[in-house]
């Protein structure tokens, strides 16, 4: 799993554009979690592209939900877009597409 910082991400407390690439599963959850923690502190606005997410399971979903909660609690804005097929599939399964504000492609 790679978290790619895209162009236009300017520190500090500015906008952060991220692209998630690879798997968001129980195997990668811990490293994703660790990678995200500092990013959350450095920025306040997020745009996360989920186009590159290959495989995602419940741990990944929980993480997305928690990220969205985090943004909400801190008064930040968080936009998740371009969900990959697997993200859409599990979001539909859990009926959380609306909840995550997944702008469908």
């Amino acid at each position, binding site marked *: 799993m790679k978290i790619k910082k895209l162009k236009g991400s300017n520190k500090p407390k500015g906008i952060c554009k991220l692209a998630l690439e690879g798997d968001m599963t*129980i*195997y990668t*959850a*811990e490293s*994703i*979690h660790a990678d*995200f*923690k500092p990013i*959350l502190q450095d920025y306040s606005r997020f745009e996360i592209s989920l186009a590159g997410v290959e495989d995602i*399971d*419940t*741990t990944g*979903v*929980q*993480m997305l*939900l*928690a*990220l969205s*909660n*985090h943004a909400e*609690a801190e008064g930040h804005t968080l936009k998740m877009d371009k969900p990959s097929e697997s993200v859409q599939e*599990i979001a539909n*399964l*859990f*009926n*959380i597409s609306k*909840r995550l504000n997944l702008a469908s492609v």
Partner: protein
Amino acid sequence: MSNDAGLDEGAQVFAEEARELLEASEITLLKLEDAPTDVELIDELFRNVHTIKGSAGLFGYTKVVAFTHVAESVLDRVRDGEVPLDNMLISTLLGTRDQMEVLVEHAINQKELAPEDVSEGQRLVALLDQYLEIPGGDQLIETEKEVNDPENGLVVDGPLAGNKNWHISLRFEKGVLRDGMDPQSFFRYLSSLGDVVDIHTLEDELPAFAEMDCLDCYLGFEIALQSEASKSEIEDVFEFVQDECSIHILPPKAALSEYMALIDQLPESNLMLGEILVKSGALTEKELEQALLLQDAVRQASNSADLTSVAPIGEVIVEQGMVDKSTVEVALEKQTSDRQATQSTFQSIRVDAEKLSSLINVVGELAISSAHAELKSRSSGDDSLVEAIEVMSRLVDEVRDSTMSLRMVQIGDTFNRYKRVVRDLGNKTGKDVDLVISGGETELDKVVVEKLGDPLMHLIRNAADHGVESPEERTVAGKTGKACIMLSAYHDSGSIIIEIEDNGRGLNKEKILEKAIEKNLISSEKGLPDNEIYRLIFAPGFSTADAVTDISGRGVGMDVVKRNIDSLRGQIDVLSQPGAGTKFVIRLPLTLAIIDGFQVLVGDSSYVIPLDMVDECIELDNESANRKDGGDYVDLRGSVLPYIRLGQQFHERDRRTEPGHRDNIVVVKYAGKKAGLVVDDLLGEHQTVIKPLGPVFENLAGFSGATILGSGEVAMIIDVASLVGDVARLDKGRVNKAANNVH
């Protein structure tokens, strides 16, 4: 993370279970062929298929589930007596079983199906679908009936919710993800039972991002499911996770009181749950109000009750008749079905083979040291010690015997597999063949049984394909039209004998000779006795079949069969009678782990000869030892007994010049041949655990292993089979000469 191991283990368990169930299904189907109306067998078959579908669903093997579902539906109708179980259907179901096996194997190995497998699946589904179309009770009406059927305990008192969907509440424990289970797989499976109308994901337990342990499961779910499945079928979806999840399932049109109880039991606030239930369509606003009112009434009732004995709310509900009897009966039904499941699937415990071998190893050494202790106690002259040790060694022997029996399995299960093979081959070749099995209860080492599977399969296929004739040929030859293959197993002096005998046309001696000469296996047919001619079929690359069929006749096989048997320290022989049939006799050692050994001294070293191969011990007199013709043989009651001197063979110190020394001959017998082993001293019986020789010495001829003696010394175990072979070969010429001398 070490979770991949966890996941693999889960899949592993599934694989083992599925294979076992598939095997059991095959046997059941074959039994059903003889007794197509046996309700118990049909039930058993249905349960097996159902369980496979259930566990496959859990692991997300959708292809297995989709296919198995069709079979299950057909079986369900058979069970209900709507579809008769005829031979056609049994054949289809056997094919279905095979296809399930293919699907399961592919799913486990995560491989794509080959195109022919896919088309086979489609063909079978089309066949099965025909049985689903036979008019019978309409499915929908049936479900309706079930809902209102008092016998199913689904008649409810009190106000009912108008909801036509099942309502399922799930709260997972935190560890569920770590244990390799993912809620999404349950939902996917659930959607195979019906239409998931609504899922509401509850994330109240989800902590802030920084605090969450991302491997814990924090989610809960409220699900509305439109399905014609029964409650137990829905419960089965969550069977694997029931210990790690609180599950509440409400049937369609459940009583409001049940919803109320549900709301009460769930951790979230009542109001919120109420809203979710309304949102998911489980309850209308009005029904919710009604339920909450009911709840209040119950509260008040319990408040007004004697304060010293405030009844728990559940009890009050029951007292007030609010929990209807369906809940109780459903619970009872679940218990019964659980018990049935337990009975059918968990009659044995799986133990790591590694653990078992280490236990056997230790117990073997225990037996040795107990024998040693017994010896020492006797020489101490202390009677009470002798007595105590005797009791102990009796117990040790018992422990050893029962430990050994852990490795032993009945060969019947392996035999039964071939029934199907013979049946299918018979159908394919238009022959009427019966497989008669006897001695299925004969036990032998599991390792041996496993390695025996393929060679036996080959021999049986050969017998069915080439051995027996078509009904017409048989009638012409004056035999009964129905051919017969006998498969039997029995014990014979420390060995297991397995025989495969057919009453077919027998081996064609001329053809074998012709072929053998053509393949340069022999130069001429002169002087070869019949059994040697027949043995030529075990030579590599030998096949006499005129036409190569897809069943056998490619010329690979018999040599592989022989090699497999050899690797088990066994022997295979073939007997044949033209026109009457062929018989293969396989002789195998009982176990590979412990033997009763006969300990001898050669030079200064101890050697062990397997006791069951020792025939007798005689003295080597001077006259025979120094025979004028230099031949190494003695006259054993009128017959020639070739011998070898182990001292020379193993380069031990020559003790023949010592004063008072005399040579002893241990007469050993293997597969009908006798030979003498000359040793310096006979030390007696000795229990022996065979320790395999390390890789370095693996190919050392003459030894089958080593053992540790009570004194801690190492003794080599003599491989009698190979030595006897050597003696026989070396001495062939000399023995022939000797035979003339003796007589």
